[in-house]
């Protein structure tokens, strides 16, 4: 009986491991570097940093200087708040090498 229970527990743990690792994002190949929702860019912001979509995608219209022909843009002022010089990764104000 004990042996049966031990097998049952081990079997359950083994069966549950892929699901657990998927939810925790461990043991998976790194997300592709792309802007798609499944890509690294969105994964870092939404999963790692737990940011809501609305944090960046604040309005349909966005900034007038980013309007045409670019749809669904994020106002870069939002990016600037975190990615300025001195932060990691810094994208704005960084000297080109």
């Amino acid at each position, binding site marked *: 009986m004990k042996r049966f229970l031990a097998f049952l527990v081990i079997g359950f743990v083994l069966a549950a491991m892929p699901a657990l690792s998927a939810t925790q994002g461990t043991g998976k190949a790194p997300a592709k*570097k*792309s*802007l798609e929702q499944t*890509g690294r*860019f969105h994964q870092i912001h939404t999963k790692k940093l737990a940011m809501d979509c609305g944090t960046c995608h604040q309005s349909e219209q966005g*900034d*007038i*200087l*980013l*309007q*045409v*022909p*670019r749809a669904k*843009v*994020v106002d*870069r*002022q939002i*990016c*600037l708040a975190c*990615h*300025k*010089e001195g932060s990691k*990764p*810094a*994208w*704005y*104000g*960084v*000297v*080109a*090498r």
Partner: protein
Amino acid sequence: MTKFVRLIDQKRCMGCRACMSACAAENYFTPEAPWNSMLEYEVGTYPTVKKIYNTLNCMHCERPSCKAACDSVGAKAISKNEFGVVLIDYNKCIGCGYCAAVCPYGVPQLNKEVKPLYPGKGKNGAETIANADRHPTHRKKQKTAEKCTFCTHKLEQAVTDGKTDRIGKDQAYTPSCDIVCPVQARMFGDIDDPKSEVAQRIKATGATQLRKQFGTGPQVYYVIEQGAKS
């Protein structure tokens, strides 16, 4: 030092889009990746309203955010050359789109598919030229980021011909968008040469860069129309 800059005068621009057409012909535009676009919007309240025409190319920033993002993903496809021109190496580009996502001006465009400029009408004249016969910046590739190059093929020609002093003056050595403007709303030249027309006009008009708060040091100056977004 030589630092090439562009001046765009919003007060003169009438939105004719000749600059866009010239760029399309010179640089083999594809529908998904225009290198030059025209923003058009109204400001003011009735009856005091006016239309703003804001043409946008690459700003060729001194501290380009596109390059910082590209380097951060390890692609290192973006460089800034001795003329201050920011260029994308299509052979190194991995098509991640990070450059497009971070640019404060939304300039780089990801060419997901290389389509003819006029869909359903076949290839236009320039599109029939084989990639191998084109300048490297005109060798269109799928899933590759593209943007304005300050017509770098013309600048290179000026170097080859020993005519760098004619950049911004001669048709052969000046970006096409800047030479076709019918109202002289665009100008190109060396800002480090105090005698150059562009340097003098920037000084005289108080022209400034757009979105300076990003600290990227754009090399395109605008004479801002009253009420326009900057």
